[in-house]
């Protein structure tokens, strides 16, 4: 079953082209990593899929429906980059934050039910953070915060999970355990995963498919073939060196 398909998607910021005729599709159960140099349009692509920015040209289909008329947002879990849009003053506890993941399946007037609280408890337990349920959000460590945001994305039992740089705030050990968790979700629950990462070693280790972007689709196919091709391996090494240099 086709979960996501993007046809000739083009997006511009003023005169600058962010994405140029991007086309690809993802099937149920795929574990897709998006890579590419800085400014390649990775985050733009994800934001466009989620309807946060409009496409100049082209179309996006989610579960067979055109995104403009798509309404079953509960099928999609999203974990944004670094949680930059979060309000640091907000006095929420973990349970209140994770409950937000259930909004998309509700109709007016949206109420929190006993069943919602049970679902939140269950997902927190499943992710090994059941003891954090009553903890204030601003007292969480980087790793805990990431798991809570993952719980928010998972609580609605989505079919597609979209992550933008899911592990940037984590130390290497937490990062590994985070990706192990994603792999388990992908293999046991058959959740389709689409994620951006700067560290392509994680794509190599965990993903089945890679989408290599540089405003256009440079490569879309299996991870094995990508890393077997010398041109991409060189490009990737060069980009990786730049990335590490930029972030030193």
């Amino acid at each position, binding site marked *: 079953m086709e979960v996501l398909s993007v046809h000739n998607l083009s997006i511009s910021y003023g005169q600058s082209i962010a994405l140029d005729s991007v086309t690809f599709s993802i099937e149920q159960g795929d574990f897709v990593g998006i890579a590419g140099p800085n400014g390649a349009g990775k985050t733009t692509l994800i934001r466009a899929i989620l309807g946060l920015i409009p496409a100049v040209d082209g179309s996006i289909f989610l579960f067979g429906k055109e995104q403009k008329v798509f309404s079953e947002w509960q099928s999609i879990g999203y974990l944004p980059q670094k949680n930059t*849009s*979060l309000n640091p003053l907000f006095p929420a506890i973990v349970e209140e934050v994770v409950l937000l993941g259930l909004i998309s399946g509700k109709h007016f007037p949206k109420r929190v039910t006993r069943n919602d609280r049970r679902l939140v408890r269950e997902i927190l337990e499943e992710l090994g953070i059941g003891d954090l349920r009553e903890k*204030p959000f601003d007292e969480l460590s980087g790793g805990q915060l990431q798991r809570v945001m993952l719980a928010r994305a998972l609580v609605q039992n989505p079919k597609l999970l979209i992550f933008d740089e899911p592990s940037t705030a984590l130390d290497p050990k937490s990062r590994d355990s985070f990706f192990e968790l994603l792999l388990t979700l992908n293999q046991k629950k058959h959740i389709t995963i689409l994620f951006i990462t700067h560290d392509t070693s994680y794509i190599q280790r965990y993903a089945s498919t890679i989408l290599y972007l540089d405003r256009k689709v440079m490569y879309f196919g299996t991870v094995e073939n990508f890393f077997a091709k010398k041109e991409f391996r060189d490009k990737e090494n060069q980009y990786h060196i730049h990335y590490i240099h930029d972030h030193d």
Partner: protein
Amino acid sequence: MIDVSFFHFIQYAFIQKAFLAGSFVAITCATLGMFLVLRRMSLIGDGLSHVSFGAIALGLFFGVYPFYIAIPIVIIGSYFILKITEKAKVFGDTAIGIISAIGIASGVILTSVSSGFNGDLFSYLFGNILAISTTEVVFSVILSLFVLLVLTFFYLDLFSVTFDEEYAKTTGVHTDFINILLTFLTAITVVLSIKVVGVMLVSALLILPAVSALQRARGFKQALFFSVIFSLLSVFFGLFLSFSFDIPAGAMIVMMNVFFFILTLFYKR
């Protein structure tokens, strides 16, 4: 020195009316104010209160009960704040400044070209809850209940947009609608609050209980609860002290809110 006992004080009909109206307005301001403060929209209350100054002057000028005119005009003012922010490529605080200036300037012009209502206008500038009429009490209670009901119905959407607007969009929340709703509710609440604390101090009633609550609260519902408690206590003690020391009630209610804010600074979470 306090020369009245509490039981003596609460027996007066005008005090009972002030308590009733003041309590409903306090709960409304405390609840709505929490969303405004966390959304960094605190100043909208100030801007809209200035618009209400112009609207009240217009009502007095034409001899119409000012609140009947103030509600639609302040709602229109709130709409223009949103539109200017959206269309004129200016930040929200700039749009508030523009609309606020129009409100004040209109009020001053209407006051200068008319005569005889300066005294009435003064009572709207600084509030006069102890002189609230039965009709005004009913008006305050009904509108407060309306605002609180809408806030209850849209609680989850408001909570989501306030916590993380971008994420809220990805869950299908109509964030533009929620922003418009919040602004319109603020317009109604500002007009409601004028009788309690006056045009000059309305924003204090929206901001102070919320910021006091934020110093202590561990969760959002707890923050709303604390905000309502601080706001109600401020009305209660403000009215009591106002009556006891013959000090304007609106200013005393605001000073009680300031007192609770300072107190919470010493007992932060």
